[in-house]
């Protein structure tokens, strides 16, 4: 019987299997950040063990960093302490760190791919659930807890039961103006926020293959939002072209050798998945969420379900969610007022996202009622945005580019949406309080966010501009 892509990678990394227990899985790449690593370093120090393979771990501060005045010392005492702790730990244990103000600093899931640290066929972990992003390269990448971060530091391995496999195919051509974010919000709205639990998902089909690497990252990034352990996409020419020439990518003969291996990374024709779902690309429209989990999404032009349309068992949660959001069941979304727009995060904080926003707002002006935060995913993205003139276009339209970090995606720093305010956000989670206590989040694509920033209300970007949409 054939093997799935996931099996091929997983099986080749199993060091040992415990009977009726988890597998010991070897980890090729370990990414760390300031929030989920200090207890792990403290743990190995307490045990008196060294970092086993420091060269396989790379660190950067992102969750907790300010997005203005990064050249100054961090004002918040606890944040500063945590970021300094990361620096100390990396220095003491010989781990490469791209610290604040380093040209490679950025959100951990943005810098990995950008620097060629993320490559096909690897096992990649990070103490962060959106590690699934790296699956876009045909790697097995997933988030782990701090105890597991400690395991990787100490032994370069973790212990994990092997998940089941699901394939989600999106077939056909994506309609004009539909982005990767719409695709994944659509998928999650169908599969639900818990429908992927226990599975590792392979995304396939012609619509997925037509996406750029950055679009694929957006899709894999949000696989965790349907509860999946992670998502991955078979590498192809698009992948190889993206990786080639990057700072840490293999070069010369080494490249050729690796490339030959990467070309074997696909699900065999007769491979069997535990579950298969197929969607038609033609059904996908610009999407937005209205509730407090990413599965509560609909077409921008759609409406919130009525109570009758919600399964009986879920009505309590649904009603609670509507109360939090200040919406009524059955409401139309178009035209609802919005206070904040956030473009950024490891879902949509890459250069293509900024390009799309710039293209859309060029020659337009930001609406007066909107506070907009546009935050690049990394220093490199920021630099590119300056070089390409994106920053100028944004400023002309009344926006300002902030400095890289997770920012309002989880509001650990000062970028918090005030209580009761509505934010259209390109990030990945609309949980209660995610963007600040009492904040109300509506997830959407960068283009939809840009359109909202310009009109000040929820709007289908296609209504404003046919021309600029790709």
């Amino acid at each position, binding site marked *: 019987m054939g093997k799935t892509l996931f099996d091929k990678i997983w099986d080749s990394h199993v060091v040992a299997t415990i009977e009726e227990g988890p597998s010991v899985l070897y980890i090729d790449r370990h990414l760390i950040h300031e929030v989920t690593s200090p207890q792990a370093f403290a743990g190995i120090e307490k*045990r008196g063990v060294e970092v086993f393979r420091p060269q396989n771990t790379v660190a950067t501060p992102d969750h907790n960093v300010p997005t203005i005045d990064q050249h100054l010392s961090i004002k918040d005492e606890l944040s500063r*302490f945590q970021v300094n702790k990361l620096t100390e730990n990396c220095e003491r244990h010989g781990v490469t760190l791209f610290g604040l103000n380093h040209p490679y600093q950025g959100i951990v899931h943005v810098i990995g791919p950008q620097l060629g640290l993320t490559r096909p066929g690897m096992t990649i972990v990070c103490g962060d659930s959106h590690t699934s992003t790296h699956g876009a390269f045909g790697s097995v990448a997933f988030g782990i*807890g701090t105890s597991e971060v400690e395991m990787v530091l*100490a032994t370069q391995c973790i212990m994990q039961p092997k998940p089941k496999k699901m394939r989600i195919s999106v077939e056909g051509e994506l309609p004009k103006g539909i982005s990767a974010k719409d695709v994944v919000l659509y998928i999650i709205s169908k599969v639900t*926020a818990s429908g992927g639990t226990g599975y590792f998902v392979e995304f396939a089909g012609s619509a997925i293959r037509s996406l750029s690497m950055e679009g694929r990252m957006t899709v894999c990034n949000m696989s965790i939002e349907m509860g999946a352990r992670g998502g991955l996409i078979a590498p192809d020419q698009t992948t190889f072209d993206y990786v080639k020439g990057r700072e840490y990518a293999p070069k010369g003969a080494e490249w050729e050798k690796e490339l030959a291996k990467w070309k074997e990374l696909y699900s065999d024709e007769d491979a069997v998945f535990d579950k298969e779902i197929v969607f038609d690309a033609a059904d996908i429209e610009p999407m937005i969420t209205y509730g407090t989990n990413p599965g509560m999404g609909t077409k921008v032009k759609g409406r919130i379900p009525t109570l009758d349309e919600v399964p009986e068992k879920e009505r*309590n949660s649904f009603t609670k969610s509507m109360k939090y959001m200040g919406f009524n069941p059955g409401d139309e979304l178009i035209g609802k007022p919005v206070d904040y727009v956030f473009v950024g995060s490891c879902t949509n904080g890459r250069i293509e996202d900024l390009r799309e926003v710039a293209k859309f707002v060029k020659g337009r002006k930001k609406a007066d009622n909107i506070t907009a935060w546009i935050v690049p995913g990394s220093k490199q993205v920021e630099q590119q945005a300056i070089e390409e003139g994106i920053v100028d276009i944004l400023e002309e339209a009344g926006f300002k580019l902030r400095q890289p970090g997770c920012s309002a995606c989880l509001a650990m720093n000062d970028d918090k949406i005030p209580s009761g305010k509505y934010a259209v956000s390109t990030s990945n*989670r609309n949980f209660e309080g*995610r963007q600040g206590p009492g904040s109300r989040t509506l997830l959407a694509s960068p283009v939809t966010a840009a359109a909202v920033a310009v009109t000040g209300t929820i709007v289908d970007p296609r209504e404003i501009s046919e021309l600029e949409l790709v």
Partner: protein
Amino acid sequence: MAIEKFTKITSSAVPLPIENVDTDQIIPARFLKATTREGFGENLFRDWRYDSNNKPVEDFVLNDPRYSGKILVAGKNFGSGSSREHAAWAVHDYGFKVVVSSFFADIFRGNSLNNGLLPVLVTEEFLEEIFAEIEKDPKAEFEVDLKSQTFKIVSTGSTASFEINSYKKECLLNGFDDIDYLLNIKDKITAFEASRA
């Protein structure tokens, strides 16, 4: 570091009949700035437990004097969202030893097991039975026995068995953790690396 041993507990329970409780509710991000594992219980369910003026919200279960105990009974899909182990630390640090639900998010479940917090998966029907029992008598007792893998409603005798893989069970019963295991097979790991080179 060894984890706390778990064998059997008998306790009343705290009901949280809400579905899709995500880790941002369990422990909001702004409380993740600590660099040690202790003290997260204080901010468990922070934004449900306290209002914006830091006054306890009276009708939230953790503030309701009728409810107490070492068992948290939660609605379907508990612990979704972020991988923050701080969520498991917070639940455990608050004093819970067991979380019962009809569905757990994968990462939360793994994190709990790594910290001596036992996730007990029961059917939706049985979960309803537990909620109904607590509603009838907030002091109702439940017995969780890891050895026999059973969860019992003491007053009615109604029992459900739950799954746990035998390796994890051994770890919990003996207070072992995965890192000890991995450190013991380092030779094997080095040999694996050599075989790939």
